[in-house]
């Protein structure tokens, strides 16, 4: 096996391990829920993708298997596309069930009562939204 190729693959995988460890420590050490979500994206972007690039180089140049390389690329694309969607869903759900960051928010678009109305839901679901209830309480 070529020594330069091995060094490049190991650099990629060690970089991925560093970012994965940083994200995992951040999940434990961060103070509130949204900070922990931000730290978990550290794992799902660089911590995964650098290691997958190393695995891709190994599949192509050492195994010579383009099928395995395609599988690794599919895993990378799934991770890139899926985790922003899942993170957005979890952050919005955390806001809706009443979790707030420790520090005061500078811009709070979800506190707007218009933002609580889902495109497919009726007005009853909008009345049960906690942000709208808080807004109405302040006006009364």
């Amino acid at each position, binding site marked *: *096996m070529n020594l330069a190729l*091995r060094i490049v693959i*190991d650099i990629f*995988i*060690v970089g*991925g*391990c560093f970012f*994965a*460890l940083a*994200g*995992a*420590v951040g*999940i*434990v050490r961060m103070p509130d*829920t949204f900070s*922990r*979500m931000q730290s*978990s994206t550290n*794992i*799902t972007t660089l*911590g*995964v993708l650098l*290691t*997958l690039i190393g*695995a891709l180089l*190994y*599949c192509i140049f050492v*195994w010579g*298997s383009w*099928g*395995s390389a395609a*599988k*690794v690329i*599919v*895993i990378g694309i*799934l*991770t890139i596309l*899926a*985790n922003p*969607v*899942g*993170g957005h*869903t*979890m*952050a*919005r*759900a*955390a806001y*809706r*069930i009443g*979790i707030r960051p420790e520090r005061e928010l500078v811009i709070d678009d979800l506190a707007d009562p218009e933002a609580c109305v*889902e495109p497919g*839901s009726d007005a009853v*679901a909008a009345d*049960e939204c906690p942000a709208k209830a808080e807004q109405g309480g302040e006006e009364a």
Partner: protein
Amino acid sequence: MIEFVYFAIFYVLCCFIAIWRLIKGPTAPDRVVAGDCVDVLTDVALVLVALYSGRGIYLDIAIVTAILGFLSQVLIGSYLEGTL
């Protein structure tokens, strides 16, 4: 190469750090995010085990795990939000 299994063990140890937050986490989104991190780290560990053992079947398992982790995160998020 033999060193891939050590990197896989390192990722599994990172999984245990995230599992600590999964057990302790005060709110439900904390637990879901920590569980998703365990899922993603398991994906990478499976890819590294595939490189170590020379068997491509672990790559297929990693693809299925990635899809299921994404679906579970979106479903639990919609359930918590009340729009499921």
